[in-house]
């Protein structure tokens, strides 16, 4: 399943926005293992930078609580500049994940700590073709 995914997902690019370096790194390694190209950003501002550099990704995994620019600010900027071309999946430790996802116009959400199969399923379900 994992080996099949690596070929199947070739060419898809995911932007992971997460302030905790250990989580960021682990999610990056997981997605790369599945064949995704991964861009990393430790906050919203860096994420916008990455989009400017590399274009809109097929999906954005977004943490909400971050220094410098948090998930809400980032989502507002993203929608303002890029017409929500990239679907967003929110990663959050908060209890009201569904509401937070709706607030920022996200396609889906995963709660922290997350099941990696669940995370990958959400990514696959919402990534742009």
């Amino acid at each position, binding site marked *: 399943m994992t080996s099949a995914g690596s070929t199947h997902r070739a060419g898809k690019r995911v932007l992971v926005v997460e302030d905790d370096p*250990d989580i960021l790194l682990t999610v990056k390694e997981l997605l790369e293992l599945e064949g995704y190209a991964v861009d990393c950003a430790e906050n919203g501002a860096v994420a916008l930078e990455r989009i400017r550099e590399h274009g809109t990704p097929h999906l954005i995994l977004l943490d909400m*609580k971050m220094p410098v620019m948090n998930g809400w600010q980032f989502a507002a900027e993203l929608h303002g500049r890029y017409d929500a071309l990239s679907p967003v999946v929110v990663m959050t430790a908060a209890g009201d994940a569904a509401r937070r996802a709706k607030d920022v116009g996200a396609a889906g959400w995963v709660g922290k700590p997350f099941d*990696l199969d669940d995370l990958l399923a959400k990514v696959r379900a919402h990534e742009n073709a």
Partner: protein
Amino acid sequence: VVIEARDGTSEVVHLARTELSHLEERAARLAREKAHLQLLIRLMGTLGAAQGLDEVIEALLRNVLDAVGGTNVVLCYFVDEELHYADVLGLRRRLSRVEDELVKAALERREPVEREHAFSDTKMLGSPLECGAGGAYTSALPLVAGADLIGVIKLENLHVAMRSLCFQLHPFFDYAASVLKNEVLGRTRLKRAFDEVSTANVRLEAEIGVRLRTEVALQAARDELERRVRERTEELQTANKRLLVELAERRRAEAALRESSEEIRDLYDRAPCGYHSLDRRGVIVQMNDTELAWLGYAREDVVGKLHFTDLLTPPSARAFEESFPQFRVRGWVRDVELELARKDGSRLPVLLSATAVTDADGNYVMSRSTLYDISLRKKAAEAEHLLSTIVESSEDAILAKDLDGVILTWNQGAARLYGYSAEEAIGRNVGMLIPPEQPDELARLLSSLGRGERLEHYTAERIRKDGTRLFVSITMSPIRDEAGRVIRASSIARDITDRKRAEDAMRAAKEAAEDVARAKSRFLDIAAHELRTPTTVFSAVLQLAQRQLESGKAVDTAMLYRLRRNADRLSRLVVELLDVSRLERGTMVPRMKRADVVALVSDCVEDHRALAPGRPLVTTLPGGPVEVEMDPVRIQQALSSLIDNALRYSPPESPIEIGVEPSPGRVRVSVRDRGPGISEALRAELFRPLSRGASDLEERSSGLGLGLYLCRGIVELHGGTVGVTSEPGAGSTFWFELPRREEDAR
């Protein structure tokens, strides 16, 4: 016979002897008659000239004696039906009864009575020559005027030869009777005299008329008499008429007077005010029913018996005694307040005004005093006084204003509350009390009052004269005129500044408590997030490792480090939470021992160098050890959190400077970074737990944000202090100071 004419011529007439003797006799008779008439006229003239009864009587007696002689002439006459005696010898007396037989007979018979007797038994007063040898007689003649018997005149011891003369004198006696009657009437009571004289007049006129016809010889005398009588009659008639008119007028006047005085009496007695009069001693000489009713006395108990002071309360009586003498001199007094003491002991306040009644010489006769019952007015004044005392003594500010806001009244409470005296406030606008930032408040209040609305316990801010502010609770009510129009408004304001402050403090405390609750909730969110981060890492890394192992790949040692780091992080979080909990509950107990601060700082810095390779940590330390009493583990924890913060909030590669500065009594440990600096507002919040400031920090970094709070708690447990100095853009210096004993300094 030679007859001489009046014109001086004479002629010689020849007469026979008998004829001559006849003529001579006739001439003698004529001469006698003429003499008689002349005597009569003389007598009447003399009598008519006499004035008054006594003079008339005297003249009558004297002239009769002179004319007819005799030994005495006696007149008995009536005055007011009493008989009086007068004779030519000057004897005058009243007769209780008539003893003289002759007089008595004349009185009874009303006609002349006479008695003849010999001369021998009389004393001769008259001339005997003419009398011859004949005898004497005594005659009593009644004096009658009209129908009235005036008296009797008695001629004593007349010579019989005088009889014819006496007879000739009868008219004189009639005249004398009339004159006498006049004079006698002059002596009687006036009213009766007038009445009698009026009727007598008529008779007299008739008598005179008869006499005119019969007594030609008395022409001149009668003319004279008539004239006098007419004059007298006219006088009498005029007097009589005048008297009658006067009497009628007087009766009319008396009736009118009686009527008007009854009316005045009625007005006097029933007036709605008290009237009385006091004599010069102050004794009541009259008092009206109204005042008597007020006092509860009967008139007879008061008038002429009581002094006015008996009807006054003692203070009023003293005031009256002092002012009464002045009143008598000045003549008036106005609006004096006195208190009447009623018979039943109760009191009645009155207002007294009086004028003095004086005689023609200006001497005081009595007072004319008017009293008004002012008890109602007094009661009203007392009620008003009571009300105004209540208003004045009220702690509340009570004022009235018109519908433009102009202040009309201002009580003591208002003066105390707002600082303006009544003089300063009255006439000014209440707008002066209203804060300038609420310019439309007054207009709003006045317009709602104008609509007749009442405002209750309206809370407003006001400005005192000295510019300080206060909060008042105001109740405003419209005041209406008799027609129901709102003309002004009353306002009662109570200072509720203290209450407002207490309420504000309570609200602030409540808000603070809510802040704490919110902060706690946020803290729990943060804690959950912080705890979930390492658990998320554990979970994700382990799942990834599993996948890699399952796909035949090796597990990287970096992944194990990642797990280790997060396990440490979790453990630190737990310790931190426990420490906060201990600090909050006061159960953190430092394990104090004597230790060297310099060594502790060196060790701590070395640990951080190992954890953060590549960051320059620069120390500035004293040459020797600085020993203090401390819990080295806790102090190291405090210093670590400062160094952690410095590393976290400053650019990578920027140096961190750590210093130890001993000074007398204390030692300071400081950590300086080259970060962005901290705003002043945030600085104050830094050392507080669960504060709003923490939320800003939270956005900057992970972690519970309790490091500085714990640092402060630990340092304060050592009796030290913490602080921060910072310049935005130039970094921050966090420091703590620990106390040092003097012997430590040596």
